[in-house]
Structures are given as C-alpha cells and as structure tokens.
C-alpha cells in the first residue's frame, strides 16, 4: 500500500564524515530515550533513539549502568576469593562465569579435574542454559505484548530453579563450580525429579509453541523483521543463536569441544531466515536440545566421586605466569575468560568476553536504523543481550 510506505525523502542527509545530519530544532526529528527506566529494555541499559515519524534514523546504546569493575576487583582478590564474585557478572546464567573462570585457572595452574566433575559441570551449564532461554522466551513474547508466555516460562524456570536448589543449595548464584572441580555430587533421587521437571518443561514448551509460534499476529510482527545479514557475522562478531539463525552452524560446544560435549550426541540447531521469528525458534529448539542433553548426561554420568581435585592451600595459592583464553557456548553465544597471571597470588588481569558485548552495542546500533519504534523492544530482546556482561 503506497499510502503506508514511509516517505524516504524525509531522511537525514549524510555528512562528509559519515554521520547523519540531524538538526533537532528543525522539528522533523525527535530524540527519544528508552531506558534505563523502561519496561521494554532488557536489564538496565538505555537506547538513545532519534526518530523521524515512527522510524528510527539513528540509535545509540548507552551501557555502564551495571558497572561494578569486576576486572579491577579481581585483581586485588586471591584466586579463590575471585570465585564467589565471578558468578555475579551475569545474573540470568551465572554458571558460565564460574566454569570459564575455573577452567582458565585450572589450565594455568595445571590442575586435572576428575571425570565426574566434568559431567556435573556440563549438567549445570545445560540447566543454566534452559533457565536463560526460558527468560528469553518470556521476554520475547512480553516485548510484543503477550504477557502470558512470560508467566508460563517463569513458572517452568522456577521448577528448574528448584532442581538447582536441590543440587547446589541456591536459587540464583550457585557457587558450585569452583577451581578444581565441583562442590559435591548429585543428591539422592535427583535424576528422577529432574526427569519429571523435564517432562513438565516439555509440556510448557508445547503450550508456548502453540500459543506463540503458531500465532498469526506474532508471525506478522516477527517474520522478516530484524534480519541479520550473514555477511555481518564476522565484522560484528556475532555468535551463538544469533549466528545459527542465519544458517551458520556456529556452536562452541561442537567447534571447540569442552567438558564432556565430545561424548554427547547432538548437532547444532540452525535456522534459515535470520529474522526475529527464526531466532526465537532456534532458541526454542536449542532449549529442547538442552533437555535432550540433560537426559543423556543423567543416563551416562558416573555416580561416584571424586568431585574435586586436590588443591594447594588456597590461601597461599600462587599460579605461574601465563595467559590463556577459555570459551564456552552460553545461551547467547561465545562466553570467554581471558586470564593473565604473573606468578603472584592474584590474577594479573581478567577480561570477560560476553557475547552481548558485540551484540548489544555495534550490532544493535546497526540493526536499529529504519526500525519502527514499536519493533525496537522486540528487536533488542531478540538479540538476547544481558547488559551486566557488557560492562561487568
């Protein structure tokens, strides 16, 4: 319909240096801030949008509202004192921080982790992935005004948190994967209750599929919206489900196998269209894959310890100089820790590479241009970004 196509002649001209020539006092453009106090923003960050009519002509991401300076704080803590704070870097999926930090320390200190600990670590990471995806599904539906999905998925997440509580004793910050192994084995009867939770989870997912993914309005809002061009993957460092939805099977679990993933049977989930709908669908199927992986793990894991490798006296633990990078596939993409040691009892430098770092800043700023204001929230959620891992 010609009537509803926006008039492109109103768009701002480009200046010589590539920036947009936006004159706010002309009345043509409106500067709109979304966040940090805004229900459509994932977490505590903000978007500075310049809109012309209903379309965004320029968007800037502002982060740093959650900055606590972890990388600095860890430099003045001993290696074991870092362990309780690393999980606070990313709230919805804290276990990846524990795993990556532990793996980096173990590699530099030359510690061999027992086999059973590997299995339990994999189990915890997959459980965390399920939690994170459930939050995402609720958020994606909520960003388009369908609140009931969020109710169902958060309830399913609560069930999964119960299993976490049973296993680790905590709901959100589990502090279970520490350098050298894991704190303990599975409690009695855990596998059975886990199987029950997984069954309920699958029921919820079937409901979500019928209510959300088969919904005409949802399709209308998301199909063909917010497309990531596969050519952007490398320049913008896109990883995880965002890349897989573009048809590129990038999965650290398969490409750079860690823990017990080489022994498990799975193939990365990919999509074709790279739009919001495909990204949501890839995550839903990835969630089902995690359910399957947990079943495999519970069926095949060794039940007997040891779960911890012997550590030196952690109060006087010095690690020889070196540097390493350890990565894992979290629910949003490649999560990595870059650790530099200098032979003292403290890390020399820790750098956390969160996938949101590239997704939420450079990529989002690129994708948000020419996007409708109404789609900004959906687009942002569909990239699945968590601000705390951007600014740490």
């Amino acid at each position, binding site marked *: 319909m010609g009537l509803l196509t926006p008039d492109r002649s109103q768009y701002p001209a480009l200046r010589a240096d590539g920036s947009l020539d936006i004159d*706010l*006092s002309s*009345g043509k453009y409106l*500067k709109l801030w979304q966040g*940090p*106090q*805004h*229900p459509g923003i994932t*977490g*505590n960050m903000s978007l500075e949008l310049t809109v012309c009519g209903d379309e965004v002509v320029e968007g800037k991401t502002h982060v*740093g*509202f*959650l*900055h*606590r*300076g972890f990388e*600095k*704080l860890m430099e*003045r803590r001993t290696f074991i004192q870092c362990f*309780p*704070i690393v999980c*606070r870097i990313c*709230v*919805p999926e804290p276990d990846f921080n524990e795993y990556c930090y532990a793996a980096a320390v173990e590699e530099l200190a030359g510690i061999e982790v027992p086999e059973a600990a590997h299995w339990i670590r994999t189990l915890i990471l997959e459980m965390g992935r399920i939690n994170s995806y459930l*939050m995402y599904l*609720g958020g994606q539906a909520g960003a388009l005004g369908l609140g009931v999905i*969020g*109710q169902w998925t*958060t*309830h399913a*997440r*609560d069930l999964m*948190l119960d299993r976490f509580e049973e296993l680790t004793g905590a*709901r*959100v*910050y589990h502090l279970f994967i520490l350098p050298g192994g894991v704190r303990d084995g599975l409690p009695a009867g855990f596998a059975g209750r886990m199987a029950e939770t997984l069954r309920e989870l699958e029921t919820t997912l079937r409901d979500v599929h019928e209510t959300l993914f088969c919904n005409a309005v949802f399709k209308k809002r998301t199909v063909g919206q917010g497309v990531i061009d596969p050519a952007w993957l490398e320049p913008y460092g896109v990883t995880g489900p965002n890349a897989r939805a573009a048809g590129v099977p990038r999965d650290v679990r398969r490409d750079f196998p860690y823990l017990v993933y080489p022994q498990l049977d799975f193939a990365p989930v990919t999509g074709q269209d790279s739009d919001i709908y495909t990204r949501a669908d890839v995550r839903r199927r990835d969630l089902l894959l995690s359910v399957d992986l947990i079943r495999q793990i519970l069926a095949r894991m060794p039940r007997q310890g040891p779960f911890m490798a012997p550590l030196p006296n952690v109060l006087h633990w010095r690690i020889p100089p070196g540097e390493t990078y350890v990565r894992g596939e979290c629910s949003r993409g490649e999560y990595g820790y870059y650790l530099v040691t200098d032979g003292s009892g403290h890390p020399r430098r820790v750098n956390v590479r969160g996938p949101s770092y590239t997704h939420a800043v450079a990529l989002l700023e690129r994708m948000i241009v020419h996007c409708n204001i109404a789609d900004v929230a959906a687009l942002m959620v569909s990239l699945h970004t968590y601000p*705390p891992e951007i600014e740490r």
Partner: protein
Amino acid sequence: MKAELEKRLVTGPDGVEFEVDPLRDYYCDALPEVQRPAYLRIVEDLFNWARAESIWILGFGTGCGAIEMRPLMTPRFDAYRYGIQWRPTPRQANLFVISGYLSVKTLKRVIRSYEQMQNPKYVVGLGSCTLNGGMYFDSYNTIKRLDQYLPVDLYITGCMPRPEALLAGFLELKKLIRAGKAEGANQYAANFAWYKANQKQVIHDWDMPDYNW
C-alpha cells in the same frame, strides 16, 4: 554537561530567535515540601490502609536483584495477591525497589525517577549491597549506603534475597505504611539539603535541576 542542555539560541518556526536555557526553562525548580497528612485521623488511616494494600512498584531493575522480581509476579509467588503490581512510569508508582547495587551512573537515574514519584512514596533496598556495599565494598563505581542518598523504609538482606524474603519484606512494609511510619517522602523533603549534598558529592556531573518534578 551535555550539549543539548546548554544555553543556546533557537529559531522558532516563525523566524523569531529566542534563547533557551533547558535547565531553567524545561524544568520546574521548586523544592519539595513536607506534605501534612489528612486532617482527620480516620481519613488518614483509610488512606494508609489503601496505600498499604495497593503497592505499585516502579519497573526499574537497577541491579541483579531484578531477576527475582519476575518470579515474584508469576505463578509460584504471585505478589498480585497482595495488591502489588508493576507500573512502567514513575508518576504512577509509589514503591521504588532498589534491586541491588547502585553504580553512580544508575544512582543519578534513580534519584531522578524517585523524585518524579508522588508523595507518599517508599523505597525498599534489596540485597546486602544496598545495605553496606556487600560484595562490592571496594568497588570504585558502586555506592555502599543507600540511605545516604534516598530515604529507605526497609532493607531486605541477602545476596540475592529469595522471593519468599521479598514477600516477607513487602508484608513488613505494609505494616509500616498502615502504622503511618513510612514517611520517606516527607523525610526527604525535610532533610533535602543533606540528601542533596550527599548526592552531589558522588555525582559530579550534576546536569539536572535540584529537584526533578
């Protein structure tokens, strides 16, 4: 100070040039006043009861505690039963849950949002980090004592507090409100200079009016 907040000359649509000083022209700079309760005791009691039974939380997840706010609103814990619900705009909210550590950058936004809320308003600090810094006692970017900057009615401790703790905290807050003891907004207005001095000590780049109506 940002460029758009500086004094400048603007040409209106009719061609007349005029000077705009955004900080003075766009905002009301009146200071808050202590608001007396209703004259009749029974009316005030009724209002306090209504306030206690209808707590509208501002939808602003300032820190990691926000992740336990979502289970609070969903089937397992369902805080709607107690008249607690979200409001997306500070104008309509009357409870500000500071969900965890506050970086200086967020503190500025929190103060601004808090001041836009209407009297009476309440603040609940969540987690150890609002109480004494918690895990981040040595961080250069997070404040350690929330009550230096905002009048806090209630702290819920833990890292992070469980939804059960939150519910217990909200019920405790209800008792405070019903007893007429949660007068944070008036306390803020009465000690305005002290709070403002504390805030400005931390936030150097104060590019907003002293009180954001």
